[in-house]
């Protein structure tokens, strides 16, 4: 297995270079030269360790996103496929794979009346739509059996208006920028108790549907917790109480490598150590961040799947709305800032961070940026730059951990 992992690392680097803009130069094929904080140790070996690359991803143009390789198998068989370029997302839960990247035929999950179950999962940047299917999931040497996953496809079933009204589809490589998403967030299921019944108030969204045929109109259904798309980590036989994202400090680089470590305090290589625990609201998965004198208790969170620091500022210059960095910050000089996070458990700590000019950063051939920021009106979204230079623990609700009651983040 170790040999296979090493092989994968080599291959993925080569692939990243093959697809990356600006590859072929002398610097772009080298690994990160950034320095790691003396207090940070990045684990690179172990049965519970999978490599993460921040390298632009399979579309070759994705800034500040971490990608891993995931193997899916027809349940109970050795008929498997390894899919690389899967976005590591602590802001959601569940595995989603592009239909166009999947060569296996996986068993379809059906509702009680026999009709296929299909999901619409809204993300801020667009929705994912496609059937719920079942796979054995393997990452590093960890395995989970018969995991409900989502296979993303605009064409297998006709998405209802309630789904397409959510914005743009993220069901293609071009739109998603990844071959899939592995949601390793705070929860064991993607939706939770909200989805166990059909919500009938007209404004309420329903993520799960049954679709009698590829063209028939789909009907909202309630979906039991066990049938919902699952965080595969929670279904591992060991190391199943959470993950650690370990990425080195970086200013700007074409690519950096780090690790996705499974389990918290379950092995010699994943101890919580002196990391401070910040518990999250068990319903929403938020904590509170105070920035520039204002507390944002309703929509603050840590999310490796967001590709910058996103927060409200009336003083930092925004990039032009018609620029190639809409929604990002474009200060003329790098801004050194700080904010304070507070967990539901009362833990509080200040985070220092910097925001540079996004247009300038995007005009390089780099894809790993430590100082990328953007606008968000209602809270503080600690995206991937937050992960550079610190190990971030994500503990799954309902699981036992050495840090106390999950869900929480620790860093």
């Amino acid at each position: 297995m170790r040999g296979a992992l090493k092989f994968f690392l080599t291959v993925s680097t080569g692939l990243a270079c093959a697809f990356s803009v600006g590859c072929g130069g002398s610097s772009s094929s080298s690994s990160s030269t950034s320095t790691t904080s003396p207090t940070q140790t990045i684990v690179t070996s172990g049965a519970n360790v999978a490599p993460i690359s921040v390298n632009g991803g399979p579309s070759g143009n994705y800034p500040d996103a971490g990608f891993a390789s995931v193997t899916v198998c027809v349940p109970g068989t050795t008929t498997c496929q390894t899919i690389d370029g899967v976005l590591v997302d602590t802001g959601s839960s569940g595995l989603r794979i592009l239909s166009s990247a999947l060569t296996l035929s996986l068993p379809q999950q059906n509702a009680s009346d026999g009709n296929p179950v299909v999901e619409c999962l809204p993300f801020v940047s667009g929705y994912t739509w496609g059937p719920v299917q079942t796979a054995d999931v393997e990452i590093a040497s960890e395995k989970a059996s018969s995991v409900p996953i989502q296979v993303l496809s605009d064409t297998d079933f006709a998405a209802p208006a309630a789904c397409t009204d959510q914005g743009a589809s993220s069901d293609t490589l071009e739109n998603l920028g990844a071959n899939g998403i592995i949601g390793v967030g705070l929860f064991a299921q993607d939706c939770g108790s909200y989805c166990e019944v059909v919500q009938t108030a007209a404004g309420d969204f329903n993520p799960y549907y049954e679709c009698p045929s590829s063209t028939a109109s789909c009907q909202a259904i309630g979906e039991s917790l066990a049938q919902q798309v699952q965080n595969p980590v929670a279904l591992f036989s060991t190391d199943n109480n959470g993950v650690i994202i370990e990425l080195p400090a970086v200013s700007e680089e074409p690519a950096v490598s780090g690790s996705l470590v499974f389990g918290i305090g379950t092995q010699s290589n994943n101890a919580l150590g002196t990391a401070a625990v910040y518990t999250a609201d068990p319903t929403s998965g938020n904590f509170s961040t105070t920035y520039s004198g204002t507390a944002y208790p309703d929509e603050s969170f840590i999310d490796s799947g967001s590709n910058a620091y996103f927060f409200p500022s009336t003083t930092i210059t925004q990039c032009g709305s018609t620029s190639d960095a809409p929604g990002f910050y474009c200060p003329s000089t790098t801004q050194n800032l700080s904010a304070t996070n507070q967990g539901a458990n009362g833990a509080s700590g200040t985070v220092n961070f910097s925001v540079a000019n996004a247009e300038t950063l995007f005009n390089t051939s780099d894809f790993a940026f430590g100082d990328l920021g953007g606008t968000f009106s209602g809270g503080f979204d600690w995206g991937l730059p937050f992960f550079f230079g610190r190990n971030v623990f994500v503990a799954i609700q309902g699981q036992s951990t050495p840090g106390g009651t999950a869900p929480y983040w620790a860093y």
Partner: protein
Amino acid sequence: MGAVLAIVSFGLPAWAALGGDIASVQADQLHMQGSLRTTTAASYTVHEIQGATGAVVREYVSSAGKVFAVAWQGPWPPDMRQLLGSYFEQYRQAAKAQSSVRIGRRPLMIQQPGLVVQIGGHPRSFSGRAYIPDQLPSSVSAEAIQ
């Protein structure tokens, strides 16, 4: 913001479409099957509709009776077609255009002369706001809409 004026009703359904008039607040409340709380400020009224699943929609109505802004929060996004009304297609086109400018998962920020929409969050928690810039009462800053 002023004091709570009245608790108008409970258990009724409801929301008001952006750009619509005060009557659309009642339509929205019916739609959402929520309870309605109304507060007043100097030059506008806020109608806050609380749904059974924890979703909250706030509709900002000018003294002329027009909905100039909406804000929301809940486990999943609201029915944007209902909430944005005649502005929905403009929002949808802008959202699609923006997602094609640069790959990446990030909050949505639509800033056009006639419409601003900002949405953020993650599965199990979404929030956002939308407003019509040239219909904001002169005393109201965009930051007040939340």
